[in-house]
């Protein structure tokens, strides 16, 4: 049974169809990378998987269970799926530490003290040990991005969705963050990632999906897709991207 399965997911904003019948299977422990031009619907798809956007049609299964049934208890599903947004969306009225601790305290029911060691380790691993008590406004873009990652990981989700999380990082940190993802992968985390880092996608992904105009035009193992793209659109995109 796949960990996560999408079946003909359709999402519209008014007249505009942003996801146009997307089907996708993600096995337990797999890392799937979504690539595609800006506006092709990667972010929207991730938001749909996390049930932040109700879908118009199709279905989404987590561990074989349909989580897109209207009226489902969204909360328990969302706690199992973490997401890191392209635009961070940190809570501006809380320090980095409070941002990270909020959800574990509320949902996992732990106290600050219980969380402290775990969270401090996370902060340290992302090079944020001395920024825990800063407010988001006092952090650089890269620092905010890393806090957002830590915040999602602190919930110990089963599936993680990443939306171009390395875009605000310097190359050094990109390397470090990608290392963390590889480590998560080794630990068996199931991950879906929208990314422009073709190098990383090739190195780490188990499957790469190329989105265009709200559809998955082509998918496959990275070696296959990157080296022998079948579709002309994919070929054109990769030609430019890898130039």
């Amino acid at each position, binding site marked *: 049974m796949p960990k996560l399965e999408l079946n003909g997911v359709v999402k519209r904003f008014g007249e505009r169809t942003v996801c146009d019948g997307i089907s996708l299977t993600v096995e337990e422990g797999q890392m799937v990378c979504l690539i595609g031009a800006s506006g092709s619907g990667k972010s929207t798809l991730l*938001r749909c998987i*996390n049930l*932040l956007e109700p879908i118009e049609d199709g279905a989404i299964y987590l561990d074989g269970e349909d989580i897109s049934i209207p009226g489902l208890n*969204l*909360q*328990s599903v*969302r*706690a*199992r*799926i*973490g*997401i890191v*947004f392209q*635009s961070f*969306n*940190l*809570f*501006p*009225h809380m320090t980095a530490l409070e941002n990270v601790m*909020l*959800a574990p305290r*509320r*949902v996992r029911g732990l106290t600050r003290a219980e969380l402290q060691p775990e969270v401090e380790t996370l902060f340290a691993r992302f090079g944020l040990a001395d920024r825990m008590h800063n*407010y988001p*406004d*006092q952090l650089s873009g890269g620092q905010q991005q890393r806090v957002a990652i830590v*915040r*999602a990981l602190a*919930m110990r989700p089963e599936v993680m969705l990443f939306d171009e999380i390395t875009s605000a990082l310097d190359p050094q940190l990109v390397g470090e963050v990608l290392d963390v993802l590889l480590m998560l992968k080794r630990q068996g985390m199931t991950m879906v990632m929208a990314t422009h880092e073709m190098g990383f996608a090739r190195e780490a992904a188990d499957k790469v999906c190329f989105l265009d105009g709200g559809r998955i035009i082509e998918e496959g193992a990275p070696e296959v897709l990157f080296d022998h793209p079948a579709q002309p659109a994919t070929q054109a995109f990769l030609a430019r991207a890898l130039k």
Partner: protein
Amino acid sequence: MTRRERYEAQQRRRSLVIAATSTITVLAAIYFLVPLAPGWAKVQQSFFNGETLIKTFPKLLEAFRINVMIFAWSAPAIAILGLLIALARDAKSPALFPLRIFGAAFTDIFRGVPVILTVYLIGFGIPGLGLPRPWNSPYIWGTLALVLTYSAYVAEIFRSGIDSVHHSQRAAALSLGLSERQVMRDVVLPQAIRNVVPSQMNMLIALQKDVSLLSFIGPVEIFRQAGVFKSLLANFTPYVGAAIIFLIVTVPATRYADHLMARQMRERR
């Protein structure tokens, strides 16, 4: 001291001089010119009569205790009810549609109906239905009228604060698995409330003065007391006395709130 600090210090000095001179000029103009008006003696006698002020002040202060009391128990009630109504009006799920309607009707009615009528209707009308002595007190029912009216206003302000929090904040919080309630309490409301502190300060100050509306149904608070003196002495100075008492309370409170807000802003950025 860097070049910039020197410049800023100089700017500040210059503006203080301007402020001081302009303020003094205006005050001096008022001080010297107004008394030249033909009716000044009478106006002074009517509004700024030292003797009357001294005579009436102690009793005003005593009556003010009633305002403080009513204020003290209605303000928290208003904050809570106002917040609840705002939350009801903001309920997103279609199942909570009735709540939304109720919230909208509540604000429409209690903002739309003049306070005086609400005070009369609840303060006289409900006891008039035949309540026995301790339960027909104008304090109870008058306070209720005040609470209902002000909650409607306060709810609208809370609602605007909630709407001013960007929807991506809700999305981020929901995605972490927080329930709608937790999102509201931990993420949206703290930001919303901070955004509307000045508007709610407005309400607090207005409430402090509108406690006086209860005097329509009996309680002799500071305004009624000032009004009694005004009628008796045909002199408006007691109102000035009341205003002084109000200013002594509100000005430090608003300055302090402003100071807190400014500090919070400075810390944050």
